[in-house]
């Protein structure tokens, strides 16, 4: 795993308050009302994790609480690192 994704696992995150998530057959859509970015999330579990972020001390703790298998953590870390860049998710 790269340093960036390692760091994001330890980071306390939350959904940006201006973001809405909408589950879809392929995963989910995330829309940021502030910067008007639309992002495609490729798995429904991203919604579950995304909505739980603010209740846990880090992304890793959130993944654990949501019952995400450890083998999938790297791909979640990568996805949330990218969502931080597009401001869908932010550090708290």
């Amino acid at each position, binding site marked *: 795993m790269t340093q960036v994704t390692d760091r994001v696992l330890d980071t306390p995150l939350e959904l940006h308050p201006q973001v*809405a998530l*909408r*589950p*879809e*057959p*392929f*995963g989910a*859509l995330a*829309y940021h*009302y502030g*910067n*008007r970015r*639309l992002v*495609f999330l*490729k798995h429904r579990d991203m919604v579950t994790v995304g909505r739980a972020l603010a209740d846990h001390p880090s992304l890793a703790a959130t993944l654990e609480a949501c019952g995400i298998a450890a083998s999938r953590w790297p791909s979640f870390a990568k996805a949330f690192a990218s969502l931080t860049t597009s401001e869908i998710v932010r550090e708290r």
Partner: protein
Amino acid sequence: MSAESLVAQLKHGLDAPICLTWELTYACNLACVHCLSSSGQRDPRELSTDEAKRVLDELHDLQVFYINIGGGEPMVRRDFFELVEYAIGRGIGVKFSTNGAYIDAEKARRLTALDYLDIQISLDGTDAATNDAVRGAGSYDTAIRAMDHLRDAGFVERNGPFKISVVVTRHNVDQLDEFKALADSYGAQLRITRLRPSGRGADTWHELHPTNAQQRQIYDWLMANGEQVLTGDSFFHLNALGDSLPGLNMCGAGRVVCLIDPIGDVYACPFVIHDEFKAGSVRDAGGFTEVWKHSALFTDLREPQSAGACASCGSWNACQGGCMAAKFFTGLPLDGPDPECVGGAADGALSQVDVALTPRPAMDHSKPVTLTRKLIPVAGN
């Protein structure tokens, strides 16, 4: 998931549109020669304020993120601000297209004060002569004045860049850099879209649409500048020229987008106001939700589409056969090449079409032609 498999998923349709175009009125102060909805005069059957609010309630329940409001000129409606404020209050972002005629200093301040509002000012030339030939006398000055008011009201600082929205034609294609510079000078963002042979555009498309050489020019310009301009992903037919342009490479009609017209009829996209592409009405039992989820037309559009005559062409994966509306209104078969196929595959068929027999738009709200135009002096008289 790769971009390609995402597109494959989207073609099966979504539980609700990502965004939706809603033409609020057929009334317009202008009479642009390429108007997609043949607008001019209000239709007496247009949705009332209450009916429009019930539709917004449905869109809220469906979690539609934002709507593109257009017309006609949407600001002509007396309840324009009431509906926009109602939509935003229900969590639906609003983008609206306008020619700017009703954006004075006071309205610019009022628009600036709204959250989640985005504005697209239509402009089809970077000089009055080029623009007004398509959009009518005085329309260039009107658009510039509106943008000046938005600048003075601090719209960009508060809400982010408004958009300058350009329909690319044979006559303005050389101005793309100038449009970009104009947008930059206001802190605005440029949006360019494809000319469609829809509405009054059916009558002017043959004279206005870019030549084959100009299509290459648009493609090259978008490859160089595409990340900074918006296109509504409308130029995907150009992908057959090489690498894919930024954006979704697919027709979203009835799958991820649709149109609600001023009288509440629901069409597959803003470019196909014709009975053949009418899925139902928001006034039907079950409202918009029922039309989106279960109408026969939309169900059919979400089935795998045949490549038809394009199946043997190596570029089909790149261009997907192009735009359904462009084929339909130029009289071409829907399972064949786009009239602007960059490989020239439609040129033969297009020259065989009897223009008088091509499908006509469902409705024409154009204003009656007045005979008060200035007479053109004839040499020698």
